[in-house]
């Protein structure tokens, strides 16, 4: 290498280096001051902001779902409670071998179906590894015991106790109680979602649904410190949940049971009401179903079987079954005739077995082809003469008929505190014009007078109307929850009795006459229900009814036509007892039971007997 370029000026280079070192240091100082400026911004100026973010990071709110309120009958018998239930959970993080092998070994101890496995695998994919994933719900005591012995072989597998809704009486009164089911998106739209964070179940139908806000309670919270993976490290603040209120029902489970038993395997409904208070003493819709099936998700096969069953066990007939009331409407029509001065207790009508509108050919038949001969109000009710009521209805006209019967609640929801009630139908000129765009024909007035044609009533309505009649027009709103009880309060808060209307009375004798006629139905020599009067230790006022099943209206969702026994008429019976001091009013409908006297009346007698055998409270 040439040497001329190696001539170096050491002093110059040394000075140059010193200069450059200082420049480098200055450059470093500049960058450090930028860094310090940044730190001052982060740690001093924006400190509050980052402190908040840091707290948000670590503090999480966990909700503590409240315990659902219990449901008791009027005597304190529990109808819906919360049972400890055991579920098996696996924390994948703590399992140090093949998960399938662990589940296989578990299957040797407890029953694990393919469904359980599939759900477990699905959940596991969505859950962080440190969080437990449920494998089985509702372990039996035996399974819990078996697992407990072997639990050392299963690290990461645990049995967890929780509360699960349980209906100890199974299908008994299930149409009144309803059931809870797993909370879904639709449910969340009708409740305060924040109060339901952590809640897994919600009332789906029946009382469980109507009183959801009372039964549910208030959610509690736990403020916890978590790490980035969401694992809870410690609890900072705890606000305990407030359990839901307990409910006491007006039902008497023994009476309810007797009533359901009385139906045997027939389909139908029965509602019994205390006329003084409107308390529902029995609420029967047959057949029933076991609400426990729905609590933790009913499997598809069982559900389809229930849904597609010809006898429609899921259909709440007492609340939503709209039936032609048939002859059970006659006492109300008769009372209307008397109160409006259209007829009197002394007036007579000749019944040849049919009725013809003036100038028309069509014959409106009496159920008794040979006719009842000359009848007055009492015998017309006692023997259920149709011709008498054709004549009376025609004289009243549909307008007065509609107005009078509406006072008893026909055609309107009674307001019973079970969700889903249907209003029935009390037809009027306006109604027909509005819905059918047709004028009202006199023939339709005739058949309305005997509870056929357009007129429809639910069993709840019939029972309420009968109770109103028994109380001389004092109509109270029927209710099934008699009192509520806060979780920390030994005292019950009674639900107030609501008077709907006091029907104006023209003449008390008219009411007495109708009630007398209804007494004759049961206790009279020729009464249609005289068979149930035999051996009764009290006096019953009743009325049989046989509703013809034909020409079902489109408003009637329950399509009875599809039923195999569709050609049989519905059998109805309404009654109250004792006559001098009514304690119970009842309406019974047996679908396709034939005549009212044969099938419905004996069921009513069973209910009356059961209830009246106990002294008044």
């Amino acid at each position, binding site marked *: 290498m040439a040497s001329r*370029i*190696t*001539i*170096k*000026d050491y002093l110059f*280079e*040394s000075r*140059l*280096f*010193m200069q*450059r*070192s200082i420049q*480098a*240091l200055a450059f*470093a100082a500049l*960058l*450090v001051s*930028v*860094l*310090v400026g*940044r*730190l*001052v911004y*982060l*740690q*001093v100026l*924006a*400190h509050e*902001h*980052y*402190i908040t*973010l*840091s707290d948000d*990071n*670590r503090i999480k709110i966990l909700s503590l779902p409240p315990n659902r309120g219990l449901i008791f009958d009027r005597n304190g018998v529990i109808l819906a409670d919360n049972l400890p239930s055991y579920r098996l959970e696996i924390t994948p993080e703590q399992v140090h071998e093949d998960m399938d092998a662990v589940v296989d070994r578990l299957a040797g101890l407890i029953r694990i179906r393919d469904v359980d496995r599939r759900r477990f695998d699905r959940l596991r994919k969505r859950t962080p590894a440190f969080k437990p994933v449920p494998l089985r719900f509702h372990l039996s005591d035996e399974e819990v015991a078996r697992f407990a012995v072997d639990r050392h072989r299963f690290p990461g597998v645990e049995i967890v106790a929780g509360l699960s809704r349980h209906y100890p009486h199974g299908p008994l009164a299930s149409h009144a109680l309803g059931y809870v089911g797993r909370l879904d998106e639709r449910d969340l739209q009708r409740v305060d979602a924040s109060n339901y964070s952590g809640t897994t179940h919600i009332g789906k139908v029946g009382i469980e649904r109507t009183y959801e806000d009372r039964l549910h309670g208030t959610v509690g919270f736990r403020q916890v*410190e*978590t*790490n*980035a*993976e969401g694992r809870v*490290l410690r609890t900072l603040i705890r606000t305990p949940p407030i359990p839901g209120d307990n409910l006491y029902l007006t039902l008497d489970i023994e009476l309810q049971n007797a009533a359901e038993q009385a139906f045997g395997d027939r389909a139908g409904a029965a509602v019994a009401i205390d006329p003084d208070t409107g308390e529902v003493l029995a609420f029967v819709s047959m057949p029933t179903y076991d609400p426990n099936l729905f609590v933790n998700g009913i499997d598809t096969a069982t559900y389809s079987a229930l849904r597609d069953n010809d006898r429609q066990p899921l259909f709440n007939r007492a609340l939503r079954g709209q039936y032609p009331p048939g002859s059970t409407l006659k006492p109300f029509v008769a009372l209307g005739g008397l109160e409006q001065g259209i007829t009197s207790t002394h007036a007579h009508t000749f019944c040849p077995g049919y009725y013809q509108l003036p100038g028309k050919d069509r014959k409106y038949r009496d159920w008794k082809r040979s006719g009842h001969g000359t009848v007055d109000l009492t015998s017309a009710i006692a023997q259920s003469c149709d011709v008498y009521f054709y004549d009376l209805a025609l004289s009243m006209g549909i307008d007065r008929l509609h107005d009078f019967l509406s006072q008893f609640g026909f055609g309107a929801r009674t307001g019973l505190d079970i969700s889903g009630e249907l209003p029935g139908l009390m037809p009027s000129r306006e109604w027909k014009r509005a819905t059918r765009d047709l004028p009202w024909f006199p023939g339709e007035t005739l058949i309305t007078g005997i509870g056929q044609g357009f007129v429809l009533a639910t069993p709840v309505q019939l029972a309420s109307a009968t109770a109103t009649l028994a109380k001389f027009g004092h109509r109270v709103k029927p209710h099934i929850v008699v009192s509520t009880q806060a979780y920390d309060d030994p005292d019950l808060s009674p639900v107030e009795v609501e008077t709907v209307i006091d029907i104006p009375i023209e003449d008390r004798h008219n009411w007495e006459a109708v009630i007398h006629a209804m007494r004759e139905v049961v206790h009279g020599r020729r009464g249609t229900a005289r068979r149930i009067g035999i051996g009764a230790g009290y006096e019953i006022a009743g009325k049989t009814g046989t509703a013809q099943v034909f020409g079902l209206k489109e408003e009637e969702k329950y399509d009875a036509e599809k039923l195999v026994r569709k050609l049989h008429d519905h059998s109805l019976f309404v009654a109250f007892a004792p006559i001098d001091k009514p304690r119970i009013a009842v309406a019974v409908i047996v679908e396709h039971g034939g005549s009212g006297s044969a099938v419905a009346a004996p069921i009513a007698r069973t209910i009356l007997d059961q209830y009246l055998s106990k002294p008044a409270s």
Partner: protein
Amino acid sequence: MSTLLDSGREDASRRDWQHLLHIDAVLLFGLLATSAFGLMVLYSAGGQEQSILVRQLVRLGIAFGAMAVVAQLRPQWLQRWTPWLYGLGILLLVAVLVMGDVGKGAQRWLDFGFVRFQPSEMMKLAVPMMVAWYLADKRLPPTGSRLLVAGALIVVPVVLIARQPDLGTSLLIGSSGFFVLFLAGLSWRLLGGLALLAAAGAPILWHFMHDYQRQRVITFLNPEQDPLGTGYHIIQSKIAIGSGGLFGKGWLNGTQAHLEFLPERSTDFIFAVLGEEFGLLGILVLLTLYTFIIVRSLHIATQAQDTYSRLLAGSLAMTFFIYIIVNTGMVTGLLPVVGLPLPLISYGGTSMVTLMTGFGILMSIHTHRKLLPT
């Protein structure tokens, strides 16, 4: 061997223990104090696990040992072997690219069976040494063809390492070589031209970047865009530092760190733990310690007796600074995320040994002094 080990040609008056052991006490104090501070932060960041502390202590021991050993080597000896070291480094880098193990999606390691070796670590020292060696007997400031040669000596390893890809290390090596040139008096006009060239070359660089590198740049520009993905690191570390405030949450009390919100908290992001637990005050203490080390190192450089030693020492000092500013800039969200540890504080081995070897060279330069006429 007389050139390797110390011979008796030194100033007799400076024969105190520092020169006997070839240790600079002032620099050693700065390094030990910083390491001790680092151990304290690491104990907290590592979840108060003694095993982590022990392992870090062992590494520090090895690193300080390497420093002490290298300090015994005479600068002249180092200078003589510089081209061989550099040549070997380039060969190994090529070898890594050709047959290197795939680790963490990047080829950085050479597996010799008994030990895994990262040639890029070696180049952190070999590159500034080589540039200093090349310039040592040339007239300064470097210009023309000599500048081009020096530039090539830097660019070749930088590109090889960037191809691995290891952006952080290649940046570090590039700047170590650059600082040699800068300290050698690279003209400001050329510097400005280079800066312009870099700005113009950015889109081309973007074209050659890996997806994850591009993602880092995007994330840096807008971390909130992907708060749970790559932006998570920066967001969480800013929260940690910001929530620390002036005085911090206290040692072992950093919620961001202990509740595991902060990723890489004992390695690349340990600065955030410091900021959270000790606040701005703690950070200023560390920055003061670092400044102490850098100023002392630059002082050693200005006292060096030949061009090679001077340029190498100055470059080592400034590279140490680049380490610090890149890491802290990344953790505070000023710079994009590049994987560089915080020197002497972060948990980790290889880079610490390299770093301390560099300080060993500085000590060697400072303690092997010839008598010069003044």
